[in-house]
């Protein structure tokens, strides 16, 4: 039960932060939350992988917060609208969002795994 309450709070917070980011930074807000959320996903998964954090905590942070903070459908709609007049721009949008998200997620995961393997005997 408590788990569900935290999940609800985490996903509500993620969605509201994304809405505010888009409102205050109309052109870069969604990219910003996608990159931040993907970095969180990499770090949290690394911590869960190494059993530093409980898997339920990982589910709340990953599925609840990072999952709601980041979005794919908004980017898809942007590329759909760009593709009519400027297909090159749509490709750039995908590259930015997907490329940067993968990069920070990968770095976050690798950094945590390496740090833990260095610090644990």
């Amino acid at each position: 039960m408590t788990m569900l309450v935290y999940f609800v709070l985490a996903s509500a917070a993620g969605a509201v932060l994304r809405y505010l980011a888009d409102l205050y930074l109309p052109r870069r807000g969604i990219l910003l939350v996608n990159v931040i959320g993907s970095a969180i996903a990499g770090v949290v998964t690394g911590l869960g992988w190494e059993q530093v954090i409980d898997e339920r905590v990982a589910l709340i942070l990953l599925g609840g917060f990072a999952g709601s903070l980041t979005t794919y459908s908004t980017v898809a709609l942007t590329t759909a609208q760009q593709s009519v007049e400027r297909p090159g721009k749509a490709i750039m949008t995908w590259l930015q969002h997907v490329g940067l998200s993968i990069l920070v997620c990968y770095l976050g995961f690798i950094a945590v795994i390496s740090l833990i393997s260095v610090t644990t005997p």
Partner: protein
Amino acid sequence: MANPAPKPNPRTVAAVALGGVVGALARVYLPWPSLTFPGDPGDPLPTLVVNMLGSVLLGLIAGYATHRKWPEPLHKGITVGVLGSFSTMSALALAVSLAAAGQTSFGIASSVPSPWLWLLAILMLVGFLGLTTLLTLASYRVGLRRAAR
């Protein structure tokens, strides 16, 4: 022209929060759970399904809402809240990252030799992004036409 700082409408913020919870619960508890841990965060298939579905629905609704005077809380609650939270970029980034870190095989059979696996994974991803754009545009146009009737 001085651009005044936009003020968020409290009702819209509440609707986005509520919609965000609905979208996240649907993503995690539907038959295709995405981003569950310790499930299999390396399997991209659930995330691809959720993302395609969320994008096509968003196209449809955004197209339809263009010519309708929907109250802002309703509009943003569905588009930004439900569909925004339902679809996710972090799960996609995670599935690719785990494959890149050599932890998983991106849902591709492990019998496929490694260089081909990489080529397949990249082709899958690029093809999926292109298909998303095409289908979202198609659904957006369907929505526009429906609303114009």
